[in-house]
C-alpha cells in the first residue's frame, strides 16, 4: 500500500512538514521535523530509483484521477536520479544546519527557515516528479518563493536586494515558462507530458509550437542561470545564509536543468529541437561563454561565496554544453555532472559556511591563514576544489571526461580542447583561496578561532568523500546517468 503511494509521499511529506513547522513555530521542534523528513525523503527516493531501475517507469495517478485528465506523477530513470540527488543533498545539510543557522539567524526566524527549507524541498521534488506541465509550474513557484525568503534571511542587508532581484528575474522566467506551456496547451489540448509528446508531432510545423519552444527555453534558462541570464545568481548565493546557499547551489539549478532536458528531449524531441533550429549553436556558444567569462570573473572576486557562485555559473555552462552536444556521451556528461557538481559545490559552500561561522566573514582577506586554524575544514575545501578543477580521481574529472568524449565524437575537437582549457581557470581561482588560506600568516582575528564543530565537519566531509569515491568508481553514478541519457535520446517518457 505504502509502496504504491511512494511518488505522492515523496512530495506530500515535506509539504505537510512545512505546515507543521510553520504552525508550531519553535526552533527546537522545527529542526527535528526537518531532519526526520529529509531522511524519509532519501528512503523514498532510493526506493523509487530501485523500482524504476528494476521495472521501468512508474505512473502514479494523483488523487486517483487517471491520466491524461488527472495529474500524473511519472518516475523514470531521469527524474528518479534527480529525486535521489535532491533528497540526499537535502538530508546531508540537515545535521549541518542547526549550528550554522543558529550562528547566522535571529532566534525567532529559525523555525521559519526550516519551514522555507521544507517548502523548497517540496517544490524541487515536485518539479522533478510531476508528469504535468502546469503542475511543474506550480512546484517551480513553490520552490522559487521559498528560496526568495531563504535568501532574504541572510545577515547582510544586501541579501534583501539579492532576494528582490531574484524575485523579479525568477518570476519573469517562471512566467515565460507558463506562456510556453499555455501555447503548447492551445496547440495540443493537453498538459500531460506523455500525451503532449505524442500530439506535438502533428502540429510541430506551426509557429505557436516554435514560439512555445522559445519561451520555454528562455524561461527555464533564467531559472537554471544559463549565461547571460545568470545575473541573479552571484548575489543570491553570496548573501544568503550559508545553509541556504549550500542547498540552493546544489539542487535548485539542477532541477531546472532537468526540466530543460525533459522539454528538449522527451516532449519536443531531439530531432525537432536540433534539426530544424540552430539551438545547438546557440547552446554551445553560450555554454562556452559561461565556462570562460564566468570563470574569469570568478578569479577577480574578493569574496569567497561570490567567487564560488560565479564558478557555479561556469559549471552550469558544462551542463548546457552537454545538452548542446546532444550525443550519448555528452548527455551522460550533463546528467552525471548534475550529481557531481552538487556534491562538489555543496562541500565547498559547506566549508565556507564553517569558516563564516567561526570568523564571521567571507571575504578573501578575512580568510588569511585560516587553513592553520581550521585544518580539517580547509583540507575538505582543497579536495573539493580539486574536484571542481577536474583532477583525475575526483568526480569533476568524470564529468569532463564524458563531455570531452562527447564533443570529440561529434567532431568538435575544439570543444574538447576548450573544456580542458577552462579547467585551468578553475585552477587559478581555487588556487587563490588555497594560497590565502594556507600560506599566509593568520591575521589577528583568525589566530584566535577554533576548528569548526563536528556537526559541521562531518556533513562537509561526507560530500568531500562522495566527490572522491564517485570519482574513483563512477560505475554507479555514470551508469545511471547513461541509462537516463539513453532514455532521453530515444525520446522515451
Amino acid at each position: 500500500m505504502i509502496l504504491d503511494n511512494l511518488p505522492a509521499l515523496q512530495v506530500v511529506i515535506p509539504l505537510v512538514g512545512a505546515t507543521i513547522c510553520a504552525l508550531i513555530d519553535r526552533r527546537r521542534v522545527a529542526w527535528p521535523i526537518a531532519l526526520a523528513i529529509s531522511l524519509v525523503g532519501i528512503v523514498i527516493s532510493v526506493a523509487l530509483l530501485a523500482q524504476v531501475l528494476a521495472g521501468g517507469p512508474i505512473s502514479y495517478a494523483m488523487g486517483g484521477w487517471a491520466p491524461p485528465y488527472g495529474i500524473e506523477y511519472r518516475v523514470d530513470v531521469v527524474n528518479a536520479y534527480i529525486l535521489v540527488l535532491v533528497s540526499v543533498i537535502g538530508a546531508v545539510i540537515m545535521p549541518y544546519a542547526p549550528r550554522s543557522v543558529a550562528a547566522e539567524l535571529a532566534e525567532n526566524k529559525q523555525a521559519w527557515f526550516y519551514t522555507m527549507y521544507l517548502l523548497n524541498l517540496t517544490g524541487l521534488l515536485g518539479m522533478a516528479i510531476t508528469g504535468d506541465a502546469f503542475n511543474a509550474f506550480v512546484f517551480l513557484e513553490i520552490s522559487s518563493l521559498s528560496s526568495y525568503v531563504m535568501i532574504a534571511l541572510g545577515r547582510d542587508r544586501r541579501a534583501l536586494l539579492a532576494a528582490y532581484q531574484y524575485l523579479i528575474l525568477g518570476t519573469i522566467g517562471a512566467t515565460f515558462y507558463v506562456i510556453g506551456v499555455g501555447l503548447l496547451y492551445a496547440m495540443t489540448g493537453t498538459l500531460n507530458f506523455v500525451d503532449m509528446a505524442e500530439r506535438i508531432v502533428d502540429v510541430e510545423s506551426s509557429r505557436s509550437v516554435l514560439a512555445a519552444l522559445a519561451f520555454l527555453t528562455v524561461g527555464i534558462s533564467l531559472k537554471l542561470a544559463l549565461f547571460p541570464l545568470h545575473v541573479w545568481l552571484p548575489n543570491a548565493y553570496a548573501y544568503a545564509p550559508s545553509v541556504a546557499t549550500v542547498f540552493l547551489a546544489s539542487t535548485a539549478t539542477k532541477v531546472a536543468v532537468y526540466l530543460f532536458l525533459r522539454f528538449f528531449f522527451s516532449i519536443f524531441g531531439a530531432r525537432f529541437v536540433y534539426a530544424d533550429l540552430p539551438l545547438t549553436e546557440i547552446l554551445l556558444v553560450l555554454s562556452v561563454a559561461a565556462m570562460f567569462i564566468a570563470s574569469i570573473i570568478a578569479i577577480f572576486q574578493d569574496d569567497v561565496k561570490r567567487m564560488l557562485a560565479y564558478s557555479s555559473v561556469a559549471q552550469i555552462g558544462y551542463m548546457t554544453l552537454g545538452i548542446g552536444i546532444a550525443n550519448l556521451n555528452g548527455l551522460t556528461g550533463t546528467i552525471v555532472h548534475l550529481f557531481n557538481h552538487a556534491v562538489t559545490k555543496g562541500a565547498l559552500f559547506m566549508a565556507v559556511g564553517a569558516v563564516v561561522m567561526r570568523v564571521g566573514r567571507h571575504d578573501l582577506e578575512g580568510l588569511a591563514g585560516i587553513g592553520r586554524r581550521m585544518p580539517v575544514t580547509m583540507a575538505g575545501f582543497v579536495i573539493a576544489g580539486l574536484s571542481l578543477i577536474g583532477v583525475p580521481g575526483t568526480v569533476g574529472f568524470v564529468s569532463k571526461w564524458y563531455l570531452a568524449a562527447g564533443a570529440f565524437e561529434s567532431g568538435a575537437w575544439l570543444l574538447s580542447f576548450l573544456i580542458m582549457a577552462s579547467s585551468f581557470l578553475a585552477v587559478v581561482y581555487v588556487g587563490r583561496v588555497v594560497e590565502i588560506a594556507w600560506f599566509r600568516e593568520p591575521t589577528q582575528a583568525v589566530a584566535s578561532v577554533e576548528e569548526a564543530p563536528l556537526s559541521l565537519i562531518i556533513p562537509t566531509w561526507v560530500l568531500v568523500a562522495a566527490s572522491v569515491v564517485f570519482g574513483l568508481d563512477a560505475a554507479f553514478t555514470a551508469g545511471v546517468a547513461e541509462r537516463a541519457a539513453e532514455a532521453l535520446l530515444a525520446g522515451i517518457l
Partner: protein
Amino acid sequence: MDFLQTVVSHYNQWIAVFLMVSGLYIVVARGNMVKKLVGLNLFQTSVYLLYISPGKILGGTPPILAAEFAVYSNPLPHVLILTAIVVGVATLSLGLGLVVRINEAFGTIEEEELFARDPEA
C-alpha cells in the same frame, strides 16, 4: 483584407501581447521597486488572458451537461489560471514585503539612489 481580418479576429491576443510587453517594459525601465512590481504583476496578468480567451468558444455555455446545450467552453484554463492568480498574489505580496524591508534597511526604494549610496550593493 485577409491580413486585416486576421489581425482583427485575434484582438484578444493583441491585448494580451500589449499588456505583456508593457508590463515587461515597466520592469526594465522603472527604477522604483514598487513600480517594478506593478509591471511584473501586469506581465503575469497578461498571461491569464492568453490562457482564458482561447478557452471561450463562441456560443458555448459553461460545461454543465444539459439536454439543450451541445457546445461547451473549456473550463480547464479557468482552473489553471485560478492557481496562477494565487501564485501571482503570493509573488506580489512577497515582493512588496521585501520592498518594505529594503526601505527599512537602506532608506530608499529608488534603485539609482540606492546604488549611489551603497556602491557595493
